[in-house]
């Protein structure tokens, strides 16, 4: 029997801005919500893990964050700020709730989009990690792999080349291409 695929789920949403996706999710568009999840599940988990220090509770915080996003996306106002800080604020509040042991996250949605997260509640490190990890989701897998190995594995570029079995020049080319792509994402989407 053929399975009907909802039309919304096959729409191309990956190049839409966060603000567009939040607004569409606010209208009940599941495809847009799924795209937001793909972009932000890892940054939210990273933020929660850093704050809570426990993978199980961090998983719960991710669930609560996206529950809040789904419920409150219609309250987002793009004229008050980009999507990334708004999502960060929602995530931060869900995580704070989780750290307090609360289960009701219904009141944790910011009333207005913030230009940037509250500095009293987060460190600069968390915000940088949030933006960078979000931007990494935009890289092709082969560029993300080179970045991960070059920056965080402890290998030199020559060793990365040897490890992946590709020429050193290719490693440098992919690294530079990845940084250029990251720059575009960070400047265009998240500033």
């Amino acid at each position: 029997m053929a399975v009907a695929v909802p039309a919304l789920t096959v729409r191309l949403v990956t190049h839409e801005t966060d603000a567009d996706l939040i607004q569409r999710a606010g209208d009940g568009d599941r495809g847009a919500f799924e795209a937001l999840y793909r972009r932000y599940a890892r940054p939210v988990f990273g933020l929660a893990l850093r704050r809570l220090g426990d993978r199980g509770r961090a998983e719960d915080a991710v669930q609560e964050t996206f529950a809040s996003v789904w419920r409150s996306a219609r309250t987002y106002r793009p004229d008050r700020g980009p999507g990334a800080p708004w999502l960060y604020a929602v995530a931060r509040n869900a995580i704070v709730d989780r750290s307090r042991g609360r289960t009701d996250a219904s009141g944790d949605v910011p009333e207005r989009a913030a230009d940037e997260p509250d500095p009293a509640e987060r460190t600069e490190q968390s915000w940088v990690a949030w933006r960078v990890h979000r931007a990494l989701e935009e890289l092709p897998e082969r560029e993300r792999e080179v970045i991960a190995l070059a920056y965080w594995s402890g290998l030199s570029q020559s060793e990365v080349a040897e490890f992946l079995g590709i020429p050193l020049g290719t490693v440098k080319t992919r690294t530079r291409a990845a940084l250029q792509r990251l720059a575009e994402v960070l400047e265009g989407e998240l500033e």
Partner: protein
Amino acid sequence: MARDFDDLVGGDDLEPEEELRLREVHDLLVQAGPPPDLPPALERLPDEPGEAQILTYPMLPKRRWAAAAVIAAALAVAAFGAGFLVGDRGASSSEAEAVHVVPMRGVSGALASIRLGKRDDVGNLPMEVVVTGLPTQPEGAYYTLYLTRDGKPRVPCGYFRMRDHTTTVHFTVPYELKKGEDWVVTYQPKGVHEPGRIVLTT
């Protein structure tokens, strides 16, 4: 480890403005650190969200169900490998006493040893694998220890991820070792389930 921009990206062909732009991204990458591995529970969407749940994750497009099935199969294989690991943790030191040690060496000066223990009365062969110098893998990637046949990795013996410079894992396999068989460790990039690039050999 702080990475040097000039080593990673620099070049005489970069315009000053572009170099500044890329250097800023480089600094952010260093400051941010690696993204976390997403737990399996967050990789896939719930099958049937309850009616009472306000959150219902989006339905997967048809094409992604196939991908999800592949991921599920991979996780099942990984769980099987993890079962090897967990199942052997209870072994006492005497049970794990090495009968034979196989040295391995590989790319970038990586080294490993496989300590083969005494096979039990039903044929389980315990082994301790100590790996030094392989890089901590990118998110979603892992390593696989294979037995080779005809010189190619054929029989998976266990899966692992590097946590530190030196990582020790325990596996148990029921295989009979045959003459001419060898061991290799492959690097499995994210999404690649066929034997990947060989990074350690005997």
